[in-house]
């Protein structure tokens, strides 16, 4: 009886794990198969179990009018977002972990609250302001918006990284002949570099996947997400699959690479 409940419990456990994995992996797998199949196979049924490794869909994707520009824009915006969010977020994270200043607790809360503010509410005034300042439909303008989205994460991740480095290490460096800056570059930076890289990659992914602001704020210079959205009803099936694949894969790989640091961030954010 006891062994029976245990084995049925085990069965339930295994079944849920399999189900959850399937939930995530099956769509990805279908995406992979369809991307690596010829356009004819994509539009036919049943699907093959193994991908054909036919680059027809992908080359059609690459040849589609405006697609490569969109891809380039996506990369540009994401790269700019990555650089800006670290350049602005890391000093804030450092200040939060090293200095006491009035309103520090409130500041931390506000950082989180920015994420609670719905972007659609902001979209219209933002678009108006961008048009006035000439930032509309530019890669830089969009990168600014994405930076705003990514900064809370980069501040929280770097805050937790800096907090993990005892202040005594810096103080020891100061007494051994370092200025604040050289102590930072010689001691702190080498220790947090992997974490900073992770934080940068995360910002890249946030920008890479963002579609709403991209769709509202750009017309000519669309990013990949916005471009695919725009052509959703008109484009053929294999194009959607290829686009989806190109969008999902880098994000997945990056997030997988930096998962350790994302856990660290939540550990801090929940405290």
């Amino acid at each position, binding site marked *: 009886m006891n062994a029976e409940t245990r084995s049925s419990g085990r069965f339930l456990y295994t079944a849920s794990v399999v189900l959850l994995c399937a939930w995530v992996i099956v769509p990805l797998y279908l995406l992979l198969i369809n991307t690596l199949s010829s356009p004819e196979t994509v539009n036919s049924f049943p699907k093959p179990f193994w991908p054909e490794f036919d680059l027809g869909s992908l080359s059609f994707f690459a040849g589609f009018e405006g697609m490569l520009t969109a891809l380039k824009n996506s990369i540009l915006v994401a790269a700019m977002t990555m650089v800006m969010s670290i350049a602005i977020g890391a000093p804030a994270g450092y200040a939060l972990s090293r200095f006491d200043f009035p309103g520090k607790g409130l500041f931390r809360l506000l950082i989180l609250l920015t994420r609670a503010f719905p972007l659609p509410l902001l979209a219209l005034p933002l678009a108006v302001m961008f048009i006035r300042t000439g930032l509309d439909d530019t890669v830089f303008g969009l990168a600014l918006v994405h930076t705003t989205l990514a900064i809370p994460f980069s501040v929280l991740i770097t805050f937790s990284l800096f907090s993990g480095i005892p202040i*005594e*290490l810096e*103080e020891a460096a100061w*007494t051994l002949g370092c200025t604040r800056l050289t102590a930072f570059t010689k001691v702190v930076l080498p*220790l947090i570099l992997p974490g900073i890289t992770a934080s940068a990659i995360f910002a890249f992914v946030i920008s890479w996947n963002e579609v709403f602001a991209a769709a509202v704020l750009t017309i000519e210079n669309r990013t990949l997400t916005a471009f695919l959205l725009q052509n959703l009803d008109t484009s053929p099936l294999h194009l959607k699959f290829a686009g989806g694949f190109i969008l999902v894969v880098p994000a997945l790989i990056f997030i997988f690479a930096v998962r350790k640091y994302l856990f660290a961030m939540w550990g801090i954010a929940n405290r």
Partner: protein
Amino acid sequence: MAVIEIKNVAKRFGSYQALHDINLTIDDQEFMVLLGASGCGKSTLLRIIAGLETQTTGEVWIGGRRIDHLPPKDRGIAMVFQNYAVFPHLTVFENIGFGLRMQKLPNDEVKRRVERTAELMHIEQLLSRYSGELSGGQRQRVAVARALAMEPDVILMDEPLSNLDALLRMEMRAELKGVLAESNTTAIYVTHDQVEAMSMADRISVMHEGRIVQAASPIEVYRDPAERFVAGFIGNPPMNFLPAEPTGAGQWRVAGQTLKGPDLNRPLEFAIRPEDMTLSDAGLKAKAKVVEPLGAHLLVTAEVDGTLFRAVLDSDLKVSPGDVLTLAPTPDRIRWFDPKSHHAVQ
């Protein structure tokens, strides 16, 4: 030549006064220990000297140069931290050589000095390891070596041994003292361990609630505490106190007994160390409460006139709880304190 002069240094954290008007001169090559209970401001004072904390008022001079406005790197000091602060991303060699590299010394000079200090601290076989691969004691050695390699005028140590186990601490204590004596540096050493303080110091500064209450040689601090606080803090167990009433002509009434003391006409406090009493026919009547045979001697916790009183006696004596002992204080070891100002009275 590195005399350290601390002039009227005070430190406030918000509304909390951590240090009150500290004045202290530490001689060239002296080993000065800052001793006091937790929270009395020892680290704060040390960090002000190092430049890691800024004093609210006052001045710090090292070697005749006012340094309190300089960043830590320009003060000619090196510091050893309580948690070692060995850089985890560098090898032991690079840790010890860190300060030398910052001074842009040539490679062979760095190598020579790192190897010499490593040898001094007996860690020459660890030079290629990382801090994660070291024990606490080894890390401590690296931290000291890193400070010594700088050949600083002044070395500052904040409870460097407090994370080590008792045996290792005793070993390192002797070793550190030897190494520092040879290095010709002026040393300030913070600890709350009075045995450490007594055994290492040329001079001890006893701190209490942000003040230095006495700065003197270990034996003087022990024998002639300048304040009642010092008498009650130093020694294990510390001094015993009893109220004393003058009966005229330098005679005092203490717990029903008459003792000789200073020729004054106001109440004082009588004080005696537990080991400065002998069993005798005439003396203080002490009712034994707890008897602890400690091997080398016998620690008796008793009551004299309703006051807690401890005596350290010969371990051959047979004493049981409830016995009434007659304890005669050794006359030249008796000390007197003013109950109002808490200062010692001659």
